[in-house]
């Protein structure tokens, strides 16, 4: 269970990322975070994996109370999560394969498991052919899919995805979305910030809309809801 209680985030330069956000995401839910550019979606996700800390309020994920955790304890939490970063964050000195396998090595997976699982995940995101390419040898969309593969390879309990389809063509984006749905169906909780209106409207999942750092809408079977 993910729980935010009166969470505010004010950045060092005085800008507000989030203001007094309270919400709960239960195990097994699939949640879209929507809202205009600069609304605070990424801020919320960063608070969940502890890259930022709230200025006030509480963030709790299962047994982890984030504001009480030291830098040394954070890895324990992060191993429960699969994170897709908005700016991808691949390791530049590693190939596609190594970027994904690194996430498994981090959690101490056995060599056998790694060699079994990594090609499988790369196949899922359609990158088998690029397994030995380095990040700077990939197209933008390919990089993004490596980030998705890395997030999913450990079959995490929680998936936090920050605009995972921003650089993908609609068809590939739909494929990737199906992948997240499948993962969710198998029990993972998914929180996804996205601008993909069509996909959100189509899937009829819970939608949390954020504007200027505040939750303005929270619908169980929601739609993207901004009509251009």
């Amino acid at each position, binding site marked *: 269970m993910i729980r935010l209680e009166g969470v505010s985030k004010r950045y060092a330069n005085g800008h507000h990322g989030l203001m007094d956000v309270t919400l709960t995401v239960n195990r097994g839910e699939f949640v879209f975070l929507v809202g205009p550019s600069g609304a605070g979606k990424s801020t919320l996700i960063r608070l969940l994996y502890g890259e930022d800390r709230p200025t006030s309020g509480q963030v709790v994920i299962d047994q982890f109370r984030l504001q009480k955790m030291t*830098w040394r304890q954070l*890895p324990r939490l*992060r*191993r429960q*999560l699969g994170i897709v*970063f908005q700016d991808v964050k*691949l*390791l530049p000195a590693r190939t596609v394969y190594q970027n994904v396998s690194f996430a498994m090595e*981090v959690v101490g997976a056995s060599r056998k498991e790694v060699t079994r699982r990594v090609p499988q995940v790369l196949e899922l995101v359609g990158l088998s052919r690029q397994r030995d390419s380095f990040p700077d040898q990939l197209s933008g969309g390919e990089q993004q899919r490596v980030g998705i593969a890395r997030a999913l390879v450990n079959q995490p309990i929680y998936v936090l995805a920050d605009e995972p389809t921003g650089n993908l063509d609609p068809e590939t984006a739909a494929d990737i979305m199906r992948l997240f749905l499948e993962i969710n169906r198998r029990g993972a909780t998914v929180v996804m910030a996205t601008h993909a209106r069509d996909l959100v409207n189509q899937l009829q999942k819970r939608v949390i809309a954020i504007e200027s750092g505040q939750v303005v809408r929270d619908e169980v079977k929601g739609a993207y809801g901004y009509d251009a």
Partner: protein
Amino acid sequence: MTRNSLGYLVREAGRGLTRNVWMAVASISTVAISLFVLAVFVAVSANVNHVTTLLQNEVELRVFVKPHTSRSVEMNLLKQARNWPDVRKVEFFSKHEAAQQLKKEFPHQQALFAVIAKSNPLFDGYDVYTGSANEIPQVAQRFSKEPIIHNVVYEGNVVSRITRLSHIVRWAGWIVEALLALATMLIIVNTIRLAVFSRRREIQVMRLVGATNWFIRWPFVLEGLVIGFLGAGAAEAVVAASYGWVSSAAAVSVPFWPLAGMHLVIVRTSLFTGIGGFMVGGVASLIALRRFLRV
């Protein structure tokens, strides 16, 4: 550490070093150069100490025996003095030998020697070498108490100056050596920090995907150790080669000044470069990483 994670460690460090060959070369060469400078200084300082030791082998005291003392009494005192713990070496000379030496030192004062040859006004005596310079006064006093001793002559002004100087130089050597070691250490630390700095993003990404601090640190530490080790090795190789060359050249051009043995120099310099490179390299990585792990 399991076999698996040892493999990871080695692979990671190797990747770090080979991915940016150019940067690895820059770090290693900086380490090598600064260690080389340190090693050169250590070698020079070893030689200064060597010369100081040699200088101490020069006569330190000249003890003259009263005229008309019998040779057997003189030999008796010689035997006695040889057992004094603060006397390293003691040698007897007769007044004839003294005259010969004077002649050798002032070969052109023929007239003088004509006089000496007729009736030698010089004395028998001993050349005394002590274990260290501070023992000279006590030994001198002990000799002067002996009834057969006419007088005790300390070494001349020049030699005492040189000894005093060499002491200062030796001390200064230690101080400069320590300073230089510190300087080298700082350069190595800075170099590795700069190298790590350019990979800060990578480190942060590792943290964000759940790596523990030690999981991230170990490869960097190993990398630092390797950089230090290779730097130290390169410095040491150049020192060994050039020291060999210098000492053979010196044997020809300054035969009277024997350089300290290769063996001694290599041992001393590699002590410094080893600690300076290997240890500092590893520690520097740890220091350099710290700021980037807080994410």
